[in-house]
């Protein structure tokens, strides 16, 4: 993991990139994630990891680290993102690091 291991061409990176820019796409993260992942051409391992918000696995596959907490915010909300927030705590738990 780390920015040097980013896989620029990984479909998940494009999905997250666009999800932050497009409210309609974002709405589908909750309601139609499976269809969305297929449309973007995610591989089976990518699909599993995103479905389970397994951000460590996503990082290992080449998702950019900067996108990882954004993924937790896409699922858990972006507001009031302090260290005890749902999004930050989900990140901490999945990455097995302590605040």
């Amino acid at each position: 993991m780390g920015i040097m291991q980013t896989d620029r061409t990984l479909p998940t990176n494009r999905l997250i990139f666009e999800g932050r820019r497009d409210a309609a796409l974002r709405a589908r993260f909750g309601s139609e994630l499976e269809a969305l992942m297929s449309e973007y051409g995610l591989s089976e391992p990518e699909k599993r990891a995103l479905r389970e918000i397994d951000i460590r696995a996503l990082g290992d596959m080449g998702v950019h680290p900067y996108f990882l907490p954004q993924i937790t915010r896409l699922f858990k909300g972006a507001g009031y993102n302090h260290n005890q927030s749902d999004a930050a705590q989900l990140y901490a738990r999945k990455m097995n690091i302590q605040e």
Partner: protein
Amino acid sequence: MATIVSVLALAHAPGATGWLDRAPVHEQEALIAGYAAMAKRLHESRPDVIVGVANDHMLNFSMNNVPDWCVGIADQWQGPAEWFRDWVNIAPYRVAGHRALGRAIVQGCAQRGFGLAFAEQLEFDDNWSVPLHFLTPAHDIPLVPIHMNCVLPPMPAPARCLAFGRVLGEVIRAWPSDARVAIMATGGLSHDPGGPKYFEVDEAFDRGFMDLLAAGDSARVEREVSLERMMAAGDGGTVELLAWLVAMGAAGDCPADNIFYVPSVPLRCGMGGMAWNLPL
């Protein structure tokens, strides 16, 4: 010819507006006072326009074609981009752009060896929303935003950022206008969004970095600052201090004042700011 009247660099982390109440009171007070001191330096210089340099955060440039630098040339900007509003907790705002200066920067830099991207539309996140909230809350000074790639390897190396800053300064000073121009780099200091140091701040690195820049010796900066060292202090975020090197290049080799520094774990970022003492 235009005049560069101030050169500033400061942190833009979203916690400063998004969840400042979760920091201890002494951090809150130091941060508010620090941004106020930065605002004072900016306004004392009476700028007609601000040229900003900051991390794009991979918000506008998809990984399929990431420029090192992109100049916003639109007449008008707005922020924060929708999804980032709750995060930075800042109401929608508009700020004027400056098409003529933006275009002059693109053209002048191309002729001096820097091929910059340019854009009519750019989404703003914390990169401009947070510093403008503190420095120009009325959003009444036109902004030429320059978004840069700080986090998708390969990033421009420190020496290249300094060189770009020198060329940017040269192009602004050669721009046929009597405008007073401020340069404002935003980003840093140590933080690691999405990396193993997400909940850490590297105070020693930050203070060393600020002291190094404040000494005003760019040759020494080239020798002592490396991407590797920056990445070791947080590879998803600390590297956006590359924008500060652009500011230093534009300022030239003059000393700077360290205005404030608050290492804030609750804000997940070393928060600080500095201002160069330009020769009169």
